[in-house]
């Protein structure tokens, strides 16, 4: 019965009790500085504490691997032994002597003629098959390849043929750090490697000797794999390097969605640094900025466009650093280009196209072009935009995906609320903040702020520099319908529309400008206990 009473008492309880409350609470706070808009790494502080946007963009890095590519190559040497049957004494030579045991291999390098190369990487893969019924002592040399002055040489014992199955030897040899003379035996060739082979009957073979027939042979395959020079010298040819057409992201203004930004000045330094011992000519058909949101494209009009730019070769020092780069630069500004319009387009992409012509005058160096690993021909842009500007309805926006499913029951208990935004603005900009709710059909279903909700700009001194901060208090009523729309929102778009406060005067942005926000709420909320 006791249990029955308790169960009955419990069963009377249908659901949690509820009651209305009026709750006052801060919700969030944040501080907005220019560093929240533009990464610190892109901002430079001037002597007067005003800020300059600094942006660098590399257009190309034309380096050793673009100039020279050595294909993997295999060399096969087959030595058929003398006709008839002969008996060789232990240690007797079975390959011919010089020059018949010397092989030269010339690499096809497509217009590139190398005299010398220093290998960063390289493997020699050797496969030897011995059909003689005795071990063979084999000496393999690359006289033109040396490490610390010592030519490459290996001596191996190759097993003899047993039961008709040739003896074999397989091994890899590291050629890293070898210097290779590619000028051939007479030093008048290019791209040529010399190898030399000597084979002898095993000195420990039976004293009666080894019978060798005409069917016996010695087959030597050597493959040169992954030869990558760290330094090369010769003539590098005239193969044109095409860069682009290409577009790359320009994220500086990616959050701006509309409005206009007038800049007092913009400077763009176009530079070339040539660390290769090759004369070069560059032609830049096009550089442009593209604003994907507006579809507007601005092409650069400047002396560097479609005009050949010749740059001298680097100077080889034979010390450290091994090369002195040859430099070229041209400063583009409001006076000699439309670079200001290019940036005021608020681009999110930069497009460019460039052609590089090495050795435009041919082999004028007499095979003395050179290139070191890590040294190339680089071209790029250095952009400097002093933040001295006029903003007109310049809008920033960010879209946040939201999912209030988990808290929708809590939000449904919120009948109405009144939000208060406290803004303390240190920028000489007025700001109109808005928050749009986007429904499942990707349509804006509602907005939070009214049209009169605007944050006042900080006051200016005679030098048009903001002094202190301007306080603004915005009261934002949020009736029940807006709360319902918020519950059903899939995304929220936060926008801020800025106007400089002294138009048409340009205003500098200083590094100490900040805007502080705090949002508080008064909620009429039904508490439910479960």
């Amino acid at each position, binding site marked *: 019965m006791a249990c029955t009473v*308790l169960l009955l008492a419990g069963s009377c309880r249908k659901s*949690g009790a509820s009651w209305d409350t009026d709750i006052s609470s801060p919700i969030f706070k*944040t501080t907005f500085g220019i560093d929240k808009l533009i990464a610190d790494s892109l901002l430079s502080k001037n002597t007067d504490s005003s800020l300059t946007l600094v942006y660098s963009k590399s257009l190309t890095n034309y380096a050793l691997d673009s100039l020279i590519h050595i294909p993997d190559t295999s060399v096969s040497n087959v030595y058929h032994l003398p006709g008839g049957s002969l008996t060789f004494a232990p240690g007797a030579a079975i390959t011919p002597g010089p020059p018949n045991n010397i092989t030269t291999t010339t690499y096809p390098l497509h217009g590139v003629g190398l005299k010398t190369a220093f290998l960063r990487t390289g493997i020699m893969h050797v496969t030897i098959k011995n059909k003689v019924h005795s071990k063979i002592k084999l000496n393999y040399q690359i006289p033109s390849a040396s490490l610390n002055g010592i030519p490459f040489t290996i001596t191996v014992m190759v097993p003899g043929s047993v039961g008709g199955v040739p003896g074999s030897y397989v091994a890899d040899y590291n050629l890293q750090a070898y210097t290779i003379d590619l000028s051939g035996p007479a030093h008048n060739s290019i791209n040529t490697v010399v190898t030399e082979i000597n084979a002898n009957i095993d000195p420990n073979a039976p004293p009666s000797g080894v019978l060798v027939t005409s069917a016996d042979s010695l087959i030597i395959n050597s493959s040169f794999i992954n030869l990558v020079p760290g330094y090369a010298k010769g003539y590098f040819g005239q193969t044109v390097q095409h860069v682009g057409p290409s577009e790359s992201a320009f994220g500086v203004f990616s959050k701006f969605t509309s409005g206009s930004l007038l800049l007092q000045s913009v400077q763009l330094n176009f530079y070339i640094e040539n660390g290769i011992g090759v004369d070069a000519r560059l032609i830049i058909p096009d550089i442009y900025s593209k604003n994907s949101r507006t579809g507007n494209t601005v092409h650069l009009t400047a002396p560097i466009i479609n005009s050949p730019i010749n740059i001298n070769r680097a100077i080889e020092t034979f010390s450290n650093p091994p090369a002195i780069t040859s430099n070229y630069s041209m400063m583009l500004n409001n006076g000699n280009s439309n670079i200001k319009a290019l940036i005021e387009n608020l681009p999110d992409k930069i497009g460019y196209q460039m052609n590089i012509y090495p050795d435009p005058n041919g082999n004028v160096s007499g095979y003395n072009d050179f290139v070191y690993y890590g040294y190339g021909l680089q071209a790029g842009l250095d952009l400097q935009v002093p933040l001295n500007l006029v903003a007109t309805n310049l809008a920033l926006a*960010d879209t*946040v995906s939201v999912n209030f499913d988990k808290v929708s029951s809590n939000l449904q208990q919120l009948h109405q609320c009144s939000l*208060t935004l406290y803004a303390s603005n240190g920028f000489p900009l007025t700001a109109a903040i808005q928050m749009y709710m986007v429904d499942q059909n990707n349509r804006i279903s509602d907005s939070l702020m009214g049209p009169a909700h605007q944050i006042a700009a900080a006051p200016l001194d005679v030098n048009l520099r903001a002094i202190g901060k301007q306080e603004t208090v915005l009261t934002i009523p949020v009736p029940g319908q807006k709360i319902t729309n918020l519950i059903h929102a899939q995304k929220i778009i936060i926008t801020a529309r800025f106007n400089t406060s002294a138009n048409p005067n340009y205003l500098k942005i200083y590094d100490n400008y900040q805007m502080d926000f*705090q949002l508080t709420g008064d909620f009429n909320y039904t508490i439910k*206990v479960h």
Partner: protein
Amino acid sequence: MKRLLVCFFSLVAMQVKSQEINPYFSAPADSSAKRETGIFAGYSAGSNAITNGFINSFYLGQFINNSQKQEVESRLHASNRLGGDADGGIYYMQKIDSYHHHKINASWFVAIKSRQHADFSFSKDLFKVCFEGNDGYRGQTADFSGFQMNVMQYQQFQAGFMGKYFGFSLSVYNGSQYQMLQAKTAQLYTSPMGDYLDFNANYAMTVSNPSNSQPFANNGLGTGLDLYARVPICVETKHAGQLYFEVSDLGFIRWNKKTDHYGNDTLYHFDGIAINNAFQVADSSIHYSAKSILNAKVNSQSAYTAPLPASFHVCYIPDGETYQIVPGIRYRVDANYIPYEYVQVRYHIRKYLTLNAELGYGGYAGFQTGLSVQTILGRGFQLKAGTSNFLGYAFPAFTCGQGAFVSISKVFR
């Protein structure tokens, strides 16, 4: 906070008067019985501020309207109390002379009971913030200091001796659930503009193993003593009667080493969730600027000994054939309880029918108007039923305190 409120009211809504937890201590209606067995259950809830209507709405899951809140607020004092018990069980009792055929008028008994107890002490501000919100406290500090909560659920295995002039029992307790919170200091300041909150807390909280919370869970063991004595006074005078002394639940429960202990003395300042970059709102850019007291980390885990809310009861029972006027006083230790003083009128209508009416003040509530009946139903069945405050059911919106109990027993001659 919601969990606290649920604890606060759900358990209080199933409370019982302690004098009904040992129904066999009272003199049996049929004194010729040699054996008796019975079941009993009941609850009582009491508060000096919170009305029965408010508690009923809370427990029944109804909407608590403004008039209910205002009725409570009109009764709130600086410090308020709320508490009670819910109990049920079975017992068996046998006269010792039924073995020996000598009338020594003594019995032994055993009982098994399910017990729940809760008591709270809370400030006016705590109630108002919980049920009205903090908006009315802009520029002010809501003071919750002195808040106390004791909630216990346990099972009792009892065996004892009952004589004409004294009786006692020993009990073993299985501790199921225990929550204790004491806030020496707890203050919530709401700034005039609502742009920040300061919560100053110095509290200690103990919770029995939260991962073992099923009914009748074993999270602790304890022992206790109940006893009574009847002292005849003024014998052979017109004031002849008995002084009745009773002590119940004089014991403790040792909660096991998986008991969590929390405690902190901290000022929590909250001025909003810090967003690093409002234009890149993501979890990684959001930093909470205040900790939640409800998410406080467990400071330690260790065994803990908690006393039971022992009660002491004294009354004078005059001799009388038709009616008796019984004055008494009851007190509970460490339970936010004030002495309950009462006068009970026992009217013996017939040999096996007694009506009791009681007027009292104190305990968890204020004035109480109890009414009960004790009768023999036939075939050896006895019934005791009543309420600790019948006005609490008649006028729930304006009264504090309620309770009901019932006990059915079978006697064997």
